[in-house]
């Protein structure tokens, strides 16, 4: 296992390098001169030249890249053009909200998805199964922003007004955004759990358990689910990773001040360092989540040989 962890860690290195190169290139690929933007519309050519010098934009690209990465490693992602604050501070003040949002949504998807998937599988080819799978298909096909707006329409506006329209902080605030974000994941997990359970239920070892006199309920939730969960873990992990970067629109719909909203604000203000920094952080989190998913998959699936 240890060897595997080390090897898997090594594999992330090229990915991380690739991510930093892409993020670094963003600055140079977007139209417009960053120095001009930072110095302001009305800046004179001399001021722009000074800004270019200060930003190191005249150095050869590799030199610029290494100084960017060097700074990033020490936690310095530059300063926001808008506020002048350190980019890392800006990101870390917004990150917890997004992580919270992604975590709750993932928990909700797991909870609903597993229950629905198991019920569907144990009642396969019945009305219940068909109903669950149709609902799941809807859940999967509804665009997030539309679902969010619909939920607001019915539950936040009069006559019901059960939940606040926007904001973050109290449990009431959490319900609708989490429901919006968790729906698609729940649908994916339900479908995955169903097919995985159906596969497992026909395995010889389930027949062995029946031959031992094990109760059907225990066969489903202990013998079968434990095995069926192994492929589901991957889906859950990927779902969480997607949510970390995918809350952008929902944060906008519900006016939640998370990382996604920071990115949008920064883009419209052409705040390059903040955009760069946010994208880098999101990408790194995604790499990390993938790593954890792989490791837990290996841990769960003891059948896979760990050479």
């Amino acid at each position, binding site marked *: 296992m240890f060897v595997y962890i080390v090897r898997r860690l090594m594999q992330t290195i090229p990915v991380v390098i690739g991510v930093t190169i892409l993020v670094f290139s963003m600055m140079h690929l977007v139209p417009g001169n960053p120095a001009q933007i930072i110095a302001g519309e009305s800046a004179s050519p001399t001021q722009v030249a000074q800004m270019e010098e200060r930003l190191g934009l005249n150095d050869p690209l590799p030199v610029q890249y290494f100084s960017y990465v060097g700074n990033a490693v020490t936690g310095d992602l530059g300063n926001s053009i808008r506020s002048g604050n350190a980019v890392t501070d800006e990101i870390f003040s917004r990150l917890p909200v997004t992580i919270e949002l992604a975590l709750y949504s993932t928990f909700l998807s797991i909870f609903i998805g597993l229950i629905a998937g198991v019920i569907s599988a144990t009642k396969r080819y019945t009305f219940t199964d068909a109903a669950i799978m149709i609902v799941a298909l809807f859940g999967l096909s509804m665009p997030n922003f539309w679902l969010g707006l619909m939920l607001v329409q019915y539950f936040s506006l009069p006559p019901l007004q059960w939940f606040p329209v926007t904001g973050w902080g109290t449990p009431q605030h959490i319900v609708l955004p989490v429901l919006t974000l968790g729906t698609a994941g729940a649908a994916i997990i339900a479908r995955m759990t169903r097919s995985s359970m159906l596969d497992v239920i026909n395995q010889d070892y389930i027949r*062995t358990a029946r*031959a*031992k*006199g094990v109760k059907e309920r225990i066969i489903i939730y202990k013998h079968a689910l*434990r*095995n069926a969960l192994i492929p589901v873990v991957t889906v859950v992990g990927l779902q969480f990773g997607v949510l970390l970067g995918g809350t952008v629109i929902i944060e906008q719909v519900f006016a939640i001040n998370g990382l996604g909203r920071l990115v949008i604000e920064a883009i419209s203000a052409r705040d390059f360092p903040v955009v760069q920094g946010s994208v880098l952080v999101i990408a790194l989190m995604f790499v990390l989540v993938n790593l954890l998913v792989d490791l837990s998959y290996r841990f769960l699936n003891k*059948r896979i040989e760990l050479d």
Partner: protein
Amino acid sequence: MSDKQNTIIDVNELQTSFFVDGKEVKAVDGVTFDVPSGKTLGIVGESGSGKSITSLSIMRLINNPGKIKGGEINFNGENLLDKSEAQMRKIRGNQISMIFQEPMTSLNPVFTVADQIGEAVMIHQKLSKKKAREKSLEMLKLVGIPSPEKRLDNYPHELSGGMRQRVMIAIALACRPELLIADEPTTALDVTIQAQILRLIRNLQEELGMSVILITHDLGVVAETCDYVAVMYAGKIVEYADVNTLFRDPKHPYTVGLLKSLPRHDIDMEGDLSTIKGMVPTPDNMPKGCRFAPRCPFARDMCRENLPHLEDEGDGNQVRCWIHTDQWDGPEVNVKDDYESAASKQS
């Protein structure tokens, strides 16, 4: 049939069918046999003859699209087909246990050996987890697994095929069942391991005084292990006899054909590896009369037209063949002696 009081299980006219694409496949079609207490019954027959479905029917483990349609399975005098699912659960793994054809896939990959053996005793004898673990260790010793303490916490993928089958036997025997059904327990294993596993089952049977149904397609195994034999063909029993009679004086042409194709010298037949001509009939192409008639060297019109019954031969042995009835309208035949010459004339 042998004395009812000494019979652990008595299967009577068992019928199990599968319903696929609106058609009925009669996998087991009126199977009748019994197992005297403390004895081993071998069930032999070619692939697809319904051996596994018979044993799964006894366990009442037939799932959709299969269904037990009729008959009786009297175990200790009570018909298992009348039992509720909850009552069956108390019997499975406790009074009747089963080991399967596929040791590689019959153990749950995510649980340890100790968990899987202990589960049966925790369910049926309500033992604590700690006591169940002790029991698992005892069972591993019983089935002869080397360094059993270490194996307790192994997962199935850490064990060889032979060891897995030993673990399966340990699971099956943990509650000291009265009847063990072993469905081709050695087919998937190396020849040397096969002999070990069979010896183990035989020794444990004597030690624990249980009855065994041993399913196999190998008559050699039957000769070494069984007291009684039921020969199955296309969902029906064609001959039932004690092992000595069966090998000395086989009555059904199919049994004789099987024996002829057996390369052995220590039994009454000179094996020349001649195989039975033709193929096992498929369910959608079942012969109208005797199911073996299309392949039988003695078959006459009456065989092709009418299905013979399983008739008692007086000594507790039974055969399903017109030759051994009064109605037989052909010349006198001695199935065993005349088989080869008749078979050579077969087209």
